[in-house]
C-alpha cells in the first residue's frame, strides 16, 4: 500500500469513528434519561420526534444558545482550556479500540481500529490519567470554592483508583503477553474470556472504571447536594456541554475497554466452527462487540440509578483497603493460573 492509500483509509476510519462517537454520546444521554425514567416508573422524554429520539439534539441546541458565563475571579485561559482537555482526552482514546477483526474491502486488508498501536493499553491509561487535568483545571480556574473542592476530590479519587485499575489490567497483560488491544482480544479466543479466568480482576476493573468516569456511586467530584455542581459549577453553554459530552464519552470508552479486556472484545465463542461466510462472521462479530458495549453501558446507567453515593472516606477506604489488595490478589491468581495450566 502506498502512503496515500494508508492516509485515505485512516482518514475514512477517523471520520466514521468520530461520527459514530458523537451519535452514540448523544443517544447515550437519551438512553440515560430513559433508563432513569423506567427505574422511577416514568416514561422519559417522548415529545421531540418519534418517541423522543430527537431529544438529545434539542438538549445540545439549548445548551449552545445559552449565554457563556466566565466568572470574574476565573483564570480565563485555563477556564476555557479545561473542557477542551476533557473532550480531547475522551475522544482521542477511541483510536486504539478494536471494533472487529480485519476485513477485506476492495482488495485492501483493513483492520477495524483507527490506530493499531502496539502499546494501545498504555496509551489508554496515559490519556485517562490526562483526563484528571481537565477536571482539576476546571475546579481550580473557576475561582469558586465548590469547583475547587470538586476538582481536588476528583484528582484524589482518580489517582487512587488508577492504581487498582493498572493492577487489574496487569493481570490481563500477563495472559495476553502484549499491550496491543487486538492481541488481547485474540488471546481471549473461545471461552477463554478474561471475565471467566479472572473474575476478581473484572470486578476491580469495573469498579475502578466507574470511579475513573466519575459515575455514581463515585461521582463525588460533582456531588450536587454538597458541591452544587462540583467542578462544572461555574460553566455554562458550550463549555458545560463539553464536560457533559466528555463524561458520556468516557463512559463509552470505559465500556469498550471492559469489553476489550474482559469480555472478549468482538469474539463470539466458536463462531468459526459454524461455517458461516467470512463477511457474515465479521458483521456478527462487530455486532457482538456493539452488543457487549451497550450491555456494559446499560450496567453503568443501571448502577447509577440503584446505588447511592459513597461518602468520601468510604470511597478512599474502598479504593486503598479493598480494591488495591484485591487487584494484587488477582495478579497472584493469574500468575498461578499461568504456572499450573501453562496458558
Amino acid at each position, binding site marked *: 500500500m502506498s502512503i496515500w492509500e494508508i492516509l485515505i483509509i485512516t482518514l475514512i476510519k477517523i471520520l466514521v469513528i468520530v461520527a459514530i462517537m458523537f451519535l452514540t454520546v448523544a443517544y447515550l444521554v437519551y438512553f440515560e434519561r430513559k*433508563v432513569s425514567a*423506567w*427505574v422511577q*416508573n*416514568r*416514561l422519559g422524554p417522548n415529545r421531540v420526534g418519534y418517541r423522543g429520539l430527537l431529544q438529545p439534539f434539542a438538549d445540545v441546541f439549548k445548551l449552545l444558545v445559552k449565554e457563556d458565563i466566565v466568572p470574574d475571579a476565573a483564570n480565563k485561559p485555563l477556564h476555557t482550556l479545561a473542557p477542551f482537555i476533557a473532550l480531547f482526552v475522551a475522544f482521542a482514546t477511541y483510536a486504539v479500540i478494536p471494533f472487529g477483526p480485519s476485513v477485506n474491502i476492495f482488495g485492501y486488508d483493513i483492520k477495524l481500529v483507527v490506530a493499531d498501536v502496539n502499546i494501545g493499553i498504555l496509551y489508554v491509561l496515559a490519556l485517562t490519567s490526562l483526563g484528571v487535568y481537565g477536571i482539576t483545571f476546571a475546579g481550580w480556574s473557576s475561582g469558586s470554592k465548590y469547583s475547587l473542592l470538586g476538582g481536588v476530590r476528583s484528582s484524589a479519587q482518580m489517582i487512587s483508583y488508577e492504581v487498582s485499575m493498572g493492577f487489574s489490567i496487569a493481570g490481563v497483560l500477563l495472559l495476553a503477553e502484549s499491550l496491543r488491544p487486538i492481541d488481547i482480544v485474540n488471546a481471549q479466543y473461545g471461552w477463554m474470556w478474561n471475565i471467566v479466568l479472572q473474575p476478581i480482576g473484572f470486578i476491580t476493573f469495573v469498579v475502578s472504571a466507574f470511579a475513573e468516569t466519575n459515575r455514581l456511586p463515585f461521582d463525588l467530584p460533582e456531588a450536587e447536594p454538597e458541591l452544587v455542581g462540583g467542578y462544572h459549577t461555574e460553566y455554562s453553554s458550550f463549555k458545560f456541554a463539553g464536560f457533559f459530552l466528555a463524561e458520556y464519552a468516557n463512559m463509552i470508552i470505559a465500556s469498550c475497554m471492559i469489553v476489550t479486556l474482559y469480555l472478549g472484545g468482538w469474539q463470539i465463542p466458536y463462531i468459526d466452527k459454524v461455517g458461516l461466510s467470512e463477511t457474515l462472521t465479521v458483521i456478527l462479530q462487530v455486532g457482538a462487540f456493539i452488543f457487549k458495549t451497550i450491555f456494559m453501558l446499560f450496567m453503568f446507567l*443501571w448502577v447509577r440509578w*440503584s446505588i447511592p453515593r459513597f461518602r468520601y472516606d468510604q470511597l478512599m477506604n474502598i479504593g486503598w483497603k479493598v480494591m488495591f489488595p484485591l487487584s494484587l490478589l488477582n495478579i497472584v491468581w493469574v500468575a498461578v493460573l499461568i504456572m499450573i495450566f501453562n496458558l
Partner: protein
Amino acid sequence: MAEKKRKKDLNFFERIYVVEIVKGMILTFKNMLRPKVTMEYPEVKFDPPASYRGRPVLVQENNGVERCVACGLCSRVCPALAIEVQAAETELEKERYPQKFEINMLRCIFCGFCEEVCPEEAIVMSKDYELVFTNRDDAIYGKDKLLIPVDKLKDRLEFLRNFK
C-alpha cells in the same frame, strides 16, 4: 421502624456490599418492568373522583333557569371574597334570581364553602381543573361561564347528598 444496624452488627456479606448492591439492582430492574404511572396529559386527561373540588359552577335546571335564589350566603361565606351576587325579582316561583353572579377565579381558593353553605344546592364544585386565562378580565367568570346543566353535575350532587 426497623432497628438501626451498627457497623459492628453487620455480618460478612453485608459488610462487603456486593450482595446488598446486587439486591438493590434487582429491585430497580423489577421497577423498570413495572407499568408506568405517567399520564400523558394533553392526550390523556385525569378524570377526578366525585369528591374532587374543581372550579365552582352554578346548577342550571333542565328548563334553562338557574337554581340560585341569590340569597348571597356564598358571597358572605367566601373567605377570599371571590363571589359577587346581585339579586333581582322574577315572576317564577322562586321569586328571586341572581341578575349578576360573578366569581373571580384569580381569588377563588377552591375551599368549597360556597357549596357547603348553599341552601338550594345551586352552587357546586365541578371536576373542571383546566383554568386558563390570559388577562385579569377573563378571570372573572360571569353567569355565561358558570351555568352548567344539571345533567353534567349528577356525580357531584349525588356525592353531596351522601356525604354533606
